[in-house]
């Protein structure tokens, strides 16, 4: 950790998951710091589990957080977080950044299921999530954004989520909302007053042979096959609780 500076906190966390050759997954690298402390939790079977434990609230304005996870060939990793990530206004000027880089090798499997990201009034955060899944790799990734705490106006939140499978882009989505975002973000084409927006991405090699059929899972929830062995569930809801409910149901629909 670079510590607290005039420009905010810098924190980096790294995870490497490796098949140990005896049917389980080891974590030769598990490094976190400050607000991105990592804890290995009880796994099940071949899967290793890690929980991101937020030691302090953040990110704040000017902070730069980065987290990277690599799942090697044949390894299985599940990552969650102990609590919601809360973007708060900071004393340092400028936006906060949160960059997530995920790599899944052939035969590897990653479940990336953090708690919600809550954009608090006055905050300014730019989140990027870039995932590279090799051919034959598997992924379940959930991203949930909640605009403002209950009854509160949101901060500025921009995000970009990019997923590649075997080097080819299957999903590239940017969303910008809150004060200062380009016009119409809360209008009838984009969010229409919904305060929680979520995406669930599932990458499985089986989707090549057995493509999933697009269908609606709710009034503002669509399950769509992407251009590649991947499926996206895109959902809008009134609040974070309802959003989680529909995404959990969607994951159940896809067979966990």
């Amino acid at each position, binding site marked *: 950790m670079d510590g607290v500076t005039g420009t905010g906190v810098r924190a980096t966390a790294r995870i490497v998951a490796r098949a140990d050759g005896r049917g389980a997954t080891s974590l030769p690298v598990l490094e976190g710091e400050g607000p991105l402390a990592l804890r290995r939790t009880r796994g099940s079977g071949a899967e290793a589990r890690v929980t991101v434990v937020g030691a302090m609230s953040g990110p704040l304005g000017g902070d730069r957080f980065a987290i990277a996870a690599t799942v090697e060939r044949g390894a299985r990793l599940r990552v969650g977080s102990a609590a919601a990530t809360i973007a708060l206004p900071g004393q340092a000027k400028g936006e906060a950044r949160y960059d997530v880089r995920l790599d899944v090798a052939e035969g590897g499997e990653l479940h990336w299921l953090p708690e919600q990201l809550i954009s608090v009034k006055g905050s300014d955060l730019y989140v990027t999530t870039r995932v590279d899944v090799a051919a034959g790799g598997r992924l379940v990734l959930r991203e949930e954004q909640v605009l403002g705490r209950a009854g509160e106006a949101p901060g500025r939140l921009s995000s970009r989520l990019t997923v590649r499978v075997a080097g080819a882009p299957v999903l590239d*989505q940017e969303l910008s909302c809150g004060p200062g975002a380009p016009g*119409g*973000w809360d*209008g*009838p*084409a984009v*969010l229409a007053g919904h305060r929680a927006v979520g995406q669930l991405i599932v990458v499985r090699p089986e989707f090549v042979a057995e493509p999933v059929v697009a269908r609606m899972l709710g009034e503002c929830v669509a399950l*769509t096959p*992407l251009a590649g062995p991947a499926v996206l569930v895109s959902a809008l809801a009134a609040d974070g609780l309802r959003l989680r409910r529909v995404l959990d149901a969607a994951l159940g629909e896809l067979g966990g």
Partner: protein
Amino acid sequence: MSRAALLVLADGRFPAGGHAHSGGAEVAVRAGRITGAASLEEFCRGRLHTAGLTAAALAAAAVLGLEVRELDAAADARTPSPALRGAARKLGRQLLRAARATWPSPELDAVAAEFPKGAHQPVVLGVVARTAGLSARDAAYCAAYECVSGPATAVVRLLSLDPFEATAVLGRLAPEVDRVVDRAAEAAREAVDEGVDALPAASAPLLEIGAEWHAGWAVRLFAS
């Protein structure tokens, strides 16, 4: 080569299939989210800064000579809804047909041969603009304007909205179209050096989700 080619290409009567698409407006009307000129304007504004920016940048990048196949894959990744990917390819194919009659060229024939089921419409639009001697900004203007004029025309039909009010919406959005074109053209220039990932991927969740709902309707006026 003539600048007036821009008017030919941007004309709503250019026979490239756009008249049968509402750009998500039919769904928004059914859901009660567009009820008149004010909500039409917010709808168009949101669409312009999301799908419009993304389309304009793809079109501009195609003019600057980025690989069509790579741009088409980038468009796929920026369009999670299969209904919208299908519509974009259909429209791309229809645009190519009209353009090959209007500005015959081996380049357009080659794209038609490489993509028998169509490439994404904004990408085709860029290739067509270049063939017609137009610039990256011109192509971005076509894409950005079309992304708001389509819904506005559709809502005139769907709600019997006063056509003068609908056109006034487009007039009020014009300065924002300019800004989106600036951003799109700049991103396209960056993409020449940095690759297609430098292109914007701005998205509108409700347009994507709504397109899937719309695709399942048994009865609808518009194709998308």
